[in-house]
């Protein structure tokens, strides 16, 4: 039994205070995920908090021997999708804007900056599910099986979805190439 499972078992048995270790271990992962899903640091912080409260309430639904992290991501995914649905208008959810202005960094090349901008825009245009697949696969390096478990789909379907999402990003990039240069460096 790994340490997380041990803690979960204790929480299930009534040791509420042990839950603190779960929050501490996963909070920044979940926060980062919520931030990319919701496009807002402030909202992501609230969302992360709510995800852990929901997870605590549902802790008896977690099956020992399965990935706790995947179980937590499933709650986070459903919570973010709920929040996005409640918004009356979603035109495009920007990826979280960095607090650091990249262009102020002298070693950050113009080309990279342009590419990052294009990519952010392309990723922002994906559906929450597509973005989740890309994020979990590329950023969190989760297996297709784990992602399938989180999204309640079959691994083969996730593999296809992942390839399609990447293709969509590539298409968006191709559409936008040459445009961001115009946006960022236009002078009047």
């Amino acid at each position, binding site marked *: 039994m790994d340490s997380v499972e041990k803690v979960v078992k204790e929480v299930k048995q009534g040791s509420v205070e042990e839950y603190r270790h779960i929050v501490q271990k996963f909070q920044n992962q979940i926060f980062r995920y919520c931030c990319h899903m919701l496009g807002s640091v402030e909202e992501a912080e609230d969302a992360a908090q709510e995800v852990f409260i929901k997870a605590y309430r549902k802790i008896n639904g977690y099956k020992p021997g399965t990935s706790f992290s995947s179980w937590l991501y499933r709650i986070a995914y459903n919570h973010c999708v709920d929040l996005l649905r409640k918004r009356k208008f979603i035109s495009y959810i920007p990826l979280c804007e960095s607090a650091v202005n990249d262009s102020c960094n002298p070693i950050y090349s113009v080309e990279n900056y342009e590419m990052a901008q294009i990519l952010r825009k392309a990723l922002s245009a994906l559906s929450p599910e597509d973005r989740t697949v890309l994020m979990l696969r590329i950023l969190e390096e989760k297996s297709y099986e784990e992602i399938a478990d989180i999204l309640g789909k079959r691994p083969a379907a996730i593999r296809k979805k992942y390839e399609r999402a990447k293709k969509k990003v590539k298409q968006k990039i191709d559409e936008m190439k040459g445009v961001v240069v*115009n946006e960022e460096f236009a002078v*009047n």
Partner: protein
Amino acid sequence: MKNLQLTDEIKMAFDSVNLPEIDVTDAVMDSIRKPGPRYFRKKTTIVYAVLAAVILVTTTAFAAAAKMWVLKGNNDNIVLRLREFDVKPFDTSKDPELEKWYESLEPGKALVYYNANLKKPNSVILSIYPKPVVYTDLDLIREKSGFNFKVPPILPEGFEFLEGELVFEPVGIKEYGTYTELLDSLIEETEKTGRESAMLEWETTSKVLGVNLVYRNNDKEFKVCIGVWPGEDVYTDLDNLNVEVIKINDREVLYTEDDEGDREVTVRELYGKKTTRFYNGRKFEDGMAVSTYLQYKIISRDLPKEDLLLVAQGIIE
């Protein structure tokens, strides 16, 4: 871009976002220790305005277009992308009540309109139709417009300037609270009355969104609509439109003609930069900086293509 490289680039895009470390442990623990009502910051909702009367829809929500026409500027930069929308904007002629209200609206006021049928996935739209104010003094129009534009120096034979319409920005257009209050009250009204739509009269500011110059020769007329537009994307119904990119003195202009004989020539030039705004779930925040363009649109059903291009040529030279 190769597949692996793309994967790396996507990873880099996610990684390039520097997020702060958070600690919600105490808040979570406090909450689970004390069952009962919990405090969360209120989640609000978002509404965007579509200024259908004067502004074509440029939101990315209409994207996923297959067809596209591109107009390039002096430095070969793209200044306009005319795209096919996949969700058609609301046809105002479908609501006679809206047309009636707009007819009787005092110039300089705006009509705020909600229609339950006007929506996109996960969205509700509030439309604002500002009614232009007519001036006949070109100098006054220039002064009030607040931006520099060129009055067409070449006119087709027999045509003279008749009047100019100034479209003023509605009050509170950039304030999220105003949108929600308006939308909520209009939705409430439709729920009370059982009707599909609700509307109310609204004030405008002194800021000008667009200038429409009207030229006439007896019963023939053309208009030059001038405004500063953010971004390159413009969405329209390309199915019923013949589109041509035409070069005048090495400058590209866009010529369009629809089935009903409405003809337009669009001339665009780089104007400056503007920071976009996006909604973060609670409030509007500054987003990316986009280029803005001074756009001239010469519109007529009476003039042949050659005459419209002649007016465009005068603006370009």
